[in-house]
């Protein structure tokens, strides 16, 4: 299998329904060049980079944050099914009211002094990961009239090779805002869009404490795009 045989699941750069793309999407086609020798390698983070406490976003403050407590857990593999081991995942999100702990976010919803909305983990030897957090709220944005982002969690992954680097967003099943969100719908293929929707998995949760959601993540293979394939 070559990189060319893979389905291109990613959104296009030029997607005018998401207005910020208009002046930022490159106009020229990407150059196809031979891979550089270090592209199949990638950064190796020390274990200390993601302390165990960084996997739990609910213990950061003096008391528990507001909102629906949830466990987010899953497995990271490449598209051939191989686990992505010992690899950094970073997570950020707004609070249960739909407000980010970020100075640029001026949405008139309350900040939660007990919720910062940032987490980090390294996957284990089987590619598994687990975060404890609260379900983020929806929030309005100015892309178009009546625009609201569906509840989502941002995830940043490194894989085990430079070419595998991915930043994506996780969405929740049954969210009525999904069909009208231009960012979610920038992914052209329906099955690929569903890859970004987590599934309710009660047994991943903690009984009488937290809901469980499963979110498996599939990265491309570590090989760089071959020339002329």
């Amino acid at each position, binding site marked *: *299998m070559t990189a060319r045989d893979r389905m291109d699941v*990613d*959104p*296009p*750069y030029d997607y005018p329904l*998401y207005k*910020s*793309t*208009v*002046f*930022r999407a*490159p106009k*020229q086609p*990407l*150059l*196809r*060049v*031979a*891979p*550089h*020798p*270090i592209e199949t390698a*990638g*950064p*190796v*983070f*020390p274990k200390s*980079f993601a302390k165990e406490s960084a996997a739990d976003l609910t213990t950061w403050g003096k008391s528990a944050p507001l909102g629906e407590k949830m466990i987010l857990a899953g497995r990271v*593999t490449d*598209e*051939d*099914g191989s686990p992505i081991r010992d690899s950094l995942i970073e*997570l*950020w*999100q*707004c609070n249960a009211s739909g407000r*980010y702990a*970020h100075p640029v976010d001026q949405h008139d919803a309350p900040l939660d002094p007990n919720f910062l*909305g*940032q*987490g980090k983990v390294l996957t284990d030897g089987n590619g598994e990961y687990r975060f404890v957090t609260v379900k983020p709220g929806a929030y309005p944005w100015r892309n178009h009239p009546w625009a609201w982002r569906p509840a989502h969690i*941002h995830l*940043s992954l490194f894989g085990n090779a*430079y070419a595998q*680097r*991915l*930043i*994506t*967003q996780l969405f929740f099943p049954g969210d009525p805002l999904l069909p009208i969100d231009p*960012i979610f719908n*920038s*992914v052209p*293929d329906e099955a*690929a869009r569903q*890859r*970004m929707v987590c599934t309710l998995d009660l047994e991943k949760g903690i009984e009488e404490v937290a809901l469980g959601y499963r979110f498996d*993540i*599939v990265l491309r293979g570590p090989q*760089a*795009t071959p020339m002329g394939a």
Partner: protein
Amino acid sequence: MTIRTPSQTIGPFFHVGLKWEGGEKVAFQSSGKSIVLTGRVYDGAGNAITDALIESWQADPEGKAPGAGSAASAPGYSRAATDGEGRYRIETLMPGVCSGANGEKYAPQIHVTIFARGLLKALRTRVLLAEAGSLGGDPLAKAAGPRVGTLIAKQDAKDASLWEWDVRMQGTDETAFLEI
């Protein structure tokens, strides 16, 4: 074959989760020549992009891929957000010359990944740290053809450790971005 997880934009609030203390300083296991790579990122209207995240990956001074290290971060890798003027700054060591599988020689170059609001997937490219006249054998320079100038960093006339490289998303001098 399993369907990959698609890319989505980093959005405007990534600083919440992606800030690395000292992330602009690249760690290495070996020593070498200290350099600073800096520049500004512009959109198609000529405005500075003040909410981009720039990451870099490079060979060590011997031209090898950095592996695990004893530093607090990943050797060879950096992360820096652009500031209020759209400027990024990376403090690193001059990467060595790399050899390809067929013996081809790559001039010193740094892999760059750009994330920003309005980019539904990352932009990838490489910046060349060499004079245009010395790039004849470099496979990237050859492939970029007339657009190679957008990938060459300019060495400061007074401070030889300082390299300036701007990124333009659109326009006549749009940066050559790479498929990887």
